[in-house]
């Protein structure tokens, strides 16, 4: 049997594969969250931070997924601009609100961790500021999707903006190395190996996996919703062109004219 990328990137095939995949994704997400949360509270307290270190298990994976979602959007933007693929448009549009939510979780939980540890909720250091910029970029891209009515034109504009905004991702990652920050340097993904004790590392990795699975699950569902939204829009256009007055009234003004 011949397998091809284009066969799986067909919206109809995507809907069929998504229907089969979603129960497994939900099951594995639930299991990973249960195991990760158990590990987060079973892990020993930190010798300096005490019990407050438990915030790490929800804060750090949120930061990873905030950057992963944006990198995924960049790949989709390339698919959208180079191959003009409608599924790449939908994938990009679906990932933006999810990425924004994970960035929001990272910012708020980081702030709640910062107050007892640093004595302040917020400081304008490079890591915190670049993460806030990432959140604002997400909001800007969501707003841009809403501004342009025609999906393919919106996708082109958003793709260019997404590629421009990618400059912020290495800044977020390496900000703690390039500048003198209050935020601690990288302690998991380092050339010298992880600086965290294994008893605290495994729950963090499992929570990272749980967040990744949740992002994948919700992304598959959101892409499916976007495909359905486009089908409904196209159907309204077809029915209105065939002289259905009730449908014509449901259309946006610019499409109906």
């Amino acid at each position, binding site marked *: 049997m011949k397998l091809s990328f284009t066969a799986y990137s067909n919206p109809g095939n995507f809907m069929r594969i998504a229907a089969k995949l979603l129960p497994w994704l939900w099951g594995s997400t639930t299991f990973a969250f249960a195991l990760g949360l158990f590990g987060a509270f079973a892990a020993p307290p930190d010798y300096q931070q005490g019990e407050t270190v438990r*915030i790490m298990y929800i804060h750090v994976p949120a930061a990873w997924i905030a950057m992963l979602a944006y990198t995924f959007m960049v790949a989709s933007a390339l698919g959208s601009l180079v191959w003009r693929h409608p599924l790449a448009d939908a994938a990009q549009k679906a990932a933006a609100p999810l990425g924004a939510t994970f960035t929001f*979780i990272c910012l*708020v939980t980081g702030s*709640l*961790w910062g107050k*007892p540890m640093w004595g302040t909720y917020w400081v304008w250091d490079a890591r915190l500021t670049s993460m806030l910029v990432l959140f604002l970029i997400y909001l800007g891209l969501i707003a841009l999707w809403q501004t342009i009515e025609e999906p393919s034109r919106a996708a082109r504009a958003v793709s260019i903006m997404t590629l421009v905004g990618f400059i912020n991702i290495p800044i977020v990652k390496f900000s703690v190395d390039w500048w003198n920050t209050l935020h601690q340097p990288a302690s998991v993904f380092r050339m010298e190996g992880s600086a965290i004790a294994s008893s605290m590392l495994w729950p963090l990795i499992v929570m990272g996996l749980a967040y990744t699975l949740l992002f994948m699950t919700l992304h598959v569902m959101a892409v499916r919703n976007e495909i*359905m939204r486009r*089908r409904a829009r196209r*159907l309204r256009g077809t029915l209105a062109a065939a002289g259905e007055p009730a449908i014509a009234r449901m259309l946006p003004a610019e499409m109906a004219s």
Partner: protein
Amino acid sequence: MVQHSGFITAAFLVAGSALAGMIAAVLIDYRVQLRALRRLLLDHSDPRGRV
């Protein structure tokens, strides 16, 4: 009494609420799109009659 328990609880509550909100938003959007497609297909005598 656990030190800084208020901050820990608040962080878990915020993260949990945001994740629950995100899941609810995607599920509600699915129902809205499914209803819109069903209405369009069924009310206008589409021979397939399904989404």
